[in-house]
């Protein structure tokens, strides 16, 4: 027996189906950083209904080699099944390419509270070979920080340390 969400108990409109499916998929946490959802990160791109009544969820990878990509697709599938949608397809889309600008302001705040410095706002120094980025410490708010390593614990993060409070922290790389 699968549960039927209230929104589409009887002859639901396509819009309400889509909304219910979006709500279910959007709540899926990021497997690497579970304080944010895939909707917060901008990884969940769209939910639509095809001609055969199949729910199509489109997700996008952050980095090409992100090992969480497959897991996220599986989690979206399960979340939709759990919400009563049986006919579900999860697609991966590459274009337009994901950027950190797609992380919602709520997502940024959640990252900060979790101790990960959110990506700096779009900077024109991304292409500059040694472009300096001002990264603020998520613990004490100081701008006196230094990069320890360009590459961190996941493909999307770099390792920093705060020179004011001495705490090391992850920085979600601007991408």
């Amino acid at each position, binding site marked *: 027996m699968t549960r039927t969400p209230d929104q589409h108990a009887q002859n639901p409109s396509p819009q309400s189906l889509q909304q219910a499916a979006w709500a279910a998929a959007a709540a899926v946490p990021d497997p690497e950083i579970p304080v944010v959802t895939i909707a917060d990160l901008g990884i969940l791109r769209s939910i639509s209904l095809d001609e055969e009544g199949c729910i199509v969820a489109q997700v996008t990878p952050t*980095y090409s080699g992100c090992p969480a990509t497959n897991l996220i697709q599986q989690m979206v599938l399960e979340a939709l099944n759990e919400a009563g949608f049986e006919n579900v397809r999860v697609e991966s889309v590459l274009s337009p390419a994901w950027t950190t600008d797609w992380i919602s302001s709520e997502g940024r705040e959640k990252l900060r509270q979790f101790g990960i410095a959110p990506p700096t706002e779009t900077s024109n120094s991304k292409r500059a070979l040694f472009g300096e980025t001002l990264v603020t410490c998520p613990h004490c708010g100081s701008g006196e920080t230094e990069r320890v390593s*360009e*590459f961190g614990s996941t493909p999307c993060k770099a390792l920093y340390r705060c020179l004011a409070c001495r705490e090391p922290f992850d920085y979600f790389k601007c991408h």
Partner: protein
Amino acid sequence: MSGTCESIMTSNQTLFSYVLRLADDHLILSQRLGEWCGEAPTLEEDLALANIALDLIGQARALYAYAGQVEGRGRDEDQLAFMRYERDYQNLLITEQPNGDFAHTIVRQFFISAYMDSFWRRMESSKDEMLAAIAAKASKEVTYHLRHTSEWVIRLGDGTRESHERMVEALDDLMMFTGELFEIDAVAQEMLQSGVGVDASDLKAEWQHTVQTILQEATLELPKAGHMQTGGRTGRHSEHLGHILSELQYMQRSFPGLTW
């Protein structure tokens, strides 16, 4: 009628070949870098090299999946990566060269990243939507690779006498594999004419500029271009590729179709 079919088939085969060789470049280089995992000079560098390898394998995966789709014979990314023989691989020779010491690994990565940085940026405006989409992601990732390796080139070149000498040696050893980066064969030519491919020969000046700017800061020089090695695109490899493949493909060769 049949003429049209044939020409579609040929152009599909060319596209398949073009995408496949790019995928091979990325897979083989990724496998090489992966050998550093647990062996790098510092923990941060261990993470960095593994992360770069991860980016490359992600790019390879997208390319293999697309190649399989273009080919239309039901081969998926795993079959293309694990079930082809040495002579079927079309990667550039530089990608299969041994890691050597850290200087060799850095120079190899620096040469390739400088090249791929220009390559992917141009590929973003390819007429082939999938290649353009893969390029849009890859070009952002390679920016980091280029920055990271550039920093090491400067640190090692302008470091101690020992590190400087090792860099000079690495540059000398790897220079002969850079000619192949800018070669255009019939496949590349056809892809270029149809607006799908990138004119690799046109990237040379940009590559030289990028590389020389960094080398100058590193108190190093780009060696004179002497005899250039070639053959990767036609499956004629150095002795190293077979060894890489034997390790890479061992599981799938022993237990075909194995999953876990």
